[in-house]
């Protein structure tokens, strides 16, 4: 009897809820921590980025007007789905980071817990960031936080799953949609995460994941006039500065953390509030 042929997974992009190949037809070899070949990943081009921004913009009205309760439920659902695929993520994280199975397991658990943590914030962030303001006149004066819009994220190169979840969840929980440039070094868990997102009731286009070169794509994202926010967590100093300059043209909200982020620490609300606008309404009393 002949030996069974192995069936290998094709790692593609995640745009608008679908898994297309790069329009450029390019791919690159992804290696593990010890330099061994793992798989070929799509190398997205600026045109894939353009399509991803279009998909994110299209998804924004629906996602931002969903109730906070509903968004929280969907984030929680992502956590459930991730948990169900735990074994697959453990092996992918272990291969990518060269860590032991035990350590990889802890990282996957931490990613699941992080999603649950942010899911809980969905209907609480308004109370934290909103306010009823005393004014000298017969008005109710209310400030409420609203999502910024489409946020471009350069995901951290280290922490291919935990780091990635830690940058995506705070952006989408408040109603933003996003385009993520995954870790160039270890992109495979990001595409497996995309498979989780696609089966979690998350509307297509809310999260779009591109694999490839951040140095190639991030400047196009930073200059794009239809992107409203930019998270440069994964960009090196030179790239981050270039992106910040390009982002100034349409006054994007830019999040550029100082130094290295410790993902295991309590993240606080900073990543959520970085991509919120404040709307203040004056409402006459007695009408």
């Amino acid at each position: 009897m002949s030996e069974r042929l192995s069936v290998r997974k094709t790692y593609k992009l995640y745009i608008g809820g679908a898994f297309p190949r790069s329009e450029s037809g390019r791919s690159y070899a992804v290696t593990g921590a010890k330099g061994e070949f793992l798989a070929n990943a799509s190398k997205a081009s600026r045109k894939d980025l353009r399509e991803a921004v279009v998909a994110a913009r299209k998804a924004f009205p629906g996602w931002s007007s969903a109730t906070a309760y509903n968004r929280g439920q969907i984030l929680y659902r992502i956590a459930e789905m991730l948990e169900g695929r735990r074994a697959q993520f453990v092996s992918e994280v272990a291969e990518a980071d060269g860590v032991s199975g035990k350590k990889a397991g802890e990282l996957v658990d931490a990613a699941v817990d992080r999603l649950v943590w942010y899911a809980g914030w969905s209907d609480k962030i308004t109370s934290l960031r909103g306010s009823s303001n005393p004014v000298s006149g017969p008005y109710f004066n209310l400030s409420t936080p609203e999502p910024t819009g489409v946020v471009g994220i350069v995901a951290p190169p280290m922490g291919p799953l935990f780091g990635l979840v830690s940058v995506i969840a705070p952006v989408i929980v408040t109603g933003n949609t996003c385009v993520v440039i995954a870790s160039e070094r270890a992109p495979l868990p990001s595409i497996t995460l995309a498979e989780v997102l696609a089966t979690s009731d998350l509307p297509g286009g809310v999260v779009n994941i591109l694999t490839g070169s951040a140095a190639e794509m991030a400047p196009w994202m930073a200059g794009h006039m239809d992107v409203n926010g930019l998270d440069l967590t994964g960009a090196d100093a030179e790239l981050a500065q270039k992106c910040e300059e390009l982002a100034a043209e349409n006054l994007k909200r830019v999040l550029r953390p100082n130094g290295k982020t410790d993902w295991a620490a309590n993240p606080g609300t900073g990543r959520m509030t970085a991509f919120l606008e404040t709307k203040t309404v004056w409402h006459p009393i007695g009408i």
Partner: protein
Amino acid sequence: MTASTNASLRAFLHGLPGVDRVGADARAAMLGTRSIKTSAKRQAIDMAISMVDLTTLEGADTRGKVRAMCAKAVHPDPTDATVPSVAAVCVYPDLVAEARDVVGSSGVKVASVATAFPSGRSTLEVKVSDTAFAVAAGADEIDMVIDRGAFLSGDYLKVFEEIQAIKAACGEAHLKVILETGELATYDNVRRASWLAMLAGGDFIKTSTGKIQPAATLPVTLVMLEAVRDFLALEGRKVGVKPAGGIKTTKDAIKMLVLVNETAGPDWLDPDWFRLGASSVLNDLLMQRQKLTTGRYAGPDYFTLD
């Protein structure tokens, strides 16, 4: 050929060679794969902008909306003076005077739909007076609809005479004949209706009202472009083509231009002989143009809402 009886019209129209459906689809799809980049794209975008018939044909149209649209037609991108004006604005007859007032002597033409648009279901008397009203209000071009019911039931003479009557009512104004290809069912019918409209005196043949899907598909436009090319060769009169409806992106518009160049020829690549009936495509053309100018992707927040 003479068009004195329905039988002679029928004999002529049914004597036209049939359209190879698979061949037309394949050729249109093949021409749609041409890659137009950089400086050629820039030229194509400017040409497409100058061919747009900026259209608003809603029951909810107001005078204010028409004025805003006409201002946009004259200066599509107020931040960039190098952007050409569009070819024309297209409105309902009662708003022609309003449009005329705004476009003035800018060179932008005012087109008006008429003849009980979009269904064309009324008496000839009403259709003629509808046309005369629009012309009197200052329309340079009249977009009439044919009686599809008569056409489909084989009453070609009725359609022919109706087009002749409207043409007479147009006077100086150009007449565009809307075939509403989405209701004609076959490419053979599209070819026949094109010839019928041209024989009756139409200056332009137009695919659709924009109210019926499918509207201006590439293969239908291909069949109509072949018809105007052959009509010029046979009858010695040049007729224009206007695809309308469903053209939403710059890519769609450029595909149309490729189709014109490869089918009717470069002589038709002129706003006098080819128009794009659309509204939303203009913003996409402007965004693509801005991308070529500034080197960064443009966003819809920076262009007017239609």
